[in-house]
């Protein structure tokens, strides 16, 4: 440390080896130190030799490009599945060419591959292996029957309510079932009360509805 500090005023730093051996003579200026990273494309000192030309070279070029194009048509080339669009469109029916799933239609010789890779691919559009779809289909049909029965019951009770039962999915059916039952209960309550008194119960406000809406703002600060 001391040597380095002392040498600053007197010229070159002192080093363990003789600078002249390295070829840097006395009084010679060293190249300036670099203060930034090396450039991304350093300047070329020499131009590259031009490419070989000739029939052979062009033939090989054509071969290479053909190979590349041929690779894309092989079953080995898995294309990404087309991303699922947000809305099911009418034109999808006519665009079924691209695979919607990351599966391919090709089976190799299984004797050359390890057993664990041999999986049966199940796609909703294709006929998969026997067991799973049957079970699921059976379950589905059972659920549908139950729901149809409960639906018919609620329909019988309320003839004036317009219910969209035919066009909805299973989950929405359940939801509407629950909603209908709730609405039913409320209506029944109102009817009973009305029979006892002359006052119209719907005009009476007993304050129970006061805090019901505030449940929605639990997360926000109350001022």
């Amino acid at each position, binding site marked *: 440390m001391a040597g380095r500090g002392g040498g600053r005023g007197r010229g070159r730093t002192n080093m363990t080896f003789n600078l002249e051996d390295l070829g840097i003579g006395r009084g010679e200026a060293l190249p300036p130190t670099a203060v930034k990273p090396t450039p991304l494309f350093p300047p070329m*000192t*020499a131009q590259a030799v031009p490419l070989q030309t000739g029939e052979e070279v062009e033939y090989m*070029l054509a071969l290479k490009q053909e*190979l590349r194009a041929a690779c894309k048509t092989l079953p*080995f080339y898995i294309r990404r599945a087309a991303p699922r669009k947000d809305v099911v469109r009418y034109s999808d029916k006519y665009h079924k060419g691209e695979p919607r799933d*990351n599966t391919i239609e090709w089976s190799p010789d299984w004797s050359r*591959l390890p057993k664990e*890779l041999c999986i049966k691919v199940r796609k909703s559009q294709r006929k998969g292996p026997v067991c799973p779809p049957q079970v699921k289909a059976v379950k589905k049909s059972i659920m549908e029957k139950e729901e149809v029965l409960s639906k018919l019951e609620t329909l019988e009770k309320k003839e004036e309510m317009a219910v969209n039962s035919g066009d909805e999915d299973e989950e929405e059916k359940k939801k509407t079932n629950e909603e209908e039952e709730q609405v039913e209960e409320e209506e029944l309550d109102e009817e009973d009360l009305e029979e006892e008194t002359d006052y119209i119960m719907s005009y009476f406000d007993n304050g129970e509805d006061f805090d019901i809406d505030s449940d929605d703002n639990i997360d926000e600060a109350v001022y």
Partner: protein
Amino acid sequence: MLRQLHWELLIWLWLSHSDIAVCRFSTGCKGPVKYQAVGERILRIPHYPRYIYTAKTLYGDTAKRIIEELLLRGHMTMSSTVKTVANHLSLNMEEGKSSFSKLVDTYFLQCCPPVSASTPATTGAPESAPESFPDYYKVPTVGLISRGKRRRSSDDGDEQRNRKKARVETETHGDEGIYWQVNFERFHLHFRDQAIISAVASKLDQTSSEIVRTMLTMSTVTTPPTAICTQNLSTNQIFRSLPSNCSISRPILDEYLSLLVDDPMEFVGKSGDSGGGMYVINLHRALANLARATLESVVQERFGSRSAQIFRLLLQKRHLEQKQVEDIVMIAAKEAKDMLYTLLAEDLVQLQEIPKTPEHNPSRTFYLYTVNQLSTARILLQHCYKTMASLIDRRLFETEENKRLLEKSQRNEAILASLQAIGAGDEQLQQVKEMITQLEQHLEALRHLRHHINKLDSTENQVAETIFLLESYINSTTTAAH
């Protein structure tokens, strides 16, 4: 994100393409199956065009097509290969089969080794060498129905029936389970021979290259692939096997051989005097000298001819001090110093310290410059791979950028082609062409793009040749060292 299913599919695909070697536990251990990616195999892909071109020059278009199919699909049965090729080129099966057998007889194609379920778990060693399997080059006898394009002339009814039958019965040709793959080693040996022959031709003359070619063809079957030099060949044998177009008399042949032996490239060596003189081709030396020439030319192109002079001097004299270098090459001290440091910075030249005193005092140490050919070749090989990666990157980038342009032009071509197929009249074609003509600048841009991509592809091919040379030199040196 790829789901689990997708990963399994990918592995399955790669395996079938025999890019990956499978290492499995034996069924007794019941361990998980291990997969291994063989990097070497993947790095051979840049050489594919060269393999195909070689097949074409040696054995014609059918062979070229066979090799192309096998390279694309990894491995296939003989019958499926021959069928595909015959249908493509509208030949009959016999020609396809004869091409196939020719390729097998010359060892360019080999049988895939059987996948055994019980390879030892610990070693994870690659499967046994093909030569150890005795039936590797035996062509199976199969009966193939000739179904070239000539069937178009037959009745439609007949065709329908045939097609139906074909779909109902799965066609078996008697060679199920016997898969064939390309024998890359054989191709590499061929490339090596070609490199030696062309080097001799460019350095000496055509006749000497013919002589060397004869010697190499005579020893292809007898020399193992890792041999340092071929078997001894007597002058009499060479004289008898010379091709007919190269008619030289016996004393002239002797002269040529002695010229080849004296040449500093050391391709041919004399190993005895019986039979009119026994000669060998020094394969390892030839490769080393070819690699050396490559290194020298790289230095010359990048740093100038004077640096190349210094490099050559160091290769020749092994260890030299800086002062000695300056004196021998007769370049000014400052310039020589500069050049040496540049070469040192690029790792083409190494510095060797020899201390005079046991304290390794820097002022009393010899600093010698030296070139280690093997390590320099390795460094250059790394550079080549980096170059190849950059080329591929740039090509993909250019394609991505101009994707829209390319798609548009493809669509236009497709429209025109379909119109022509329908048989539209000339005026209609002209009208459509006018409708879909692109702007002049688009066409210009398209032309530029094509030009760039062609240049990049062609450069990749050239770099692949250099890679091959350096790799074979490094492999031959490391195997010779063992």
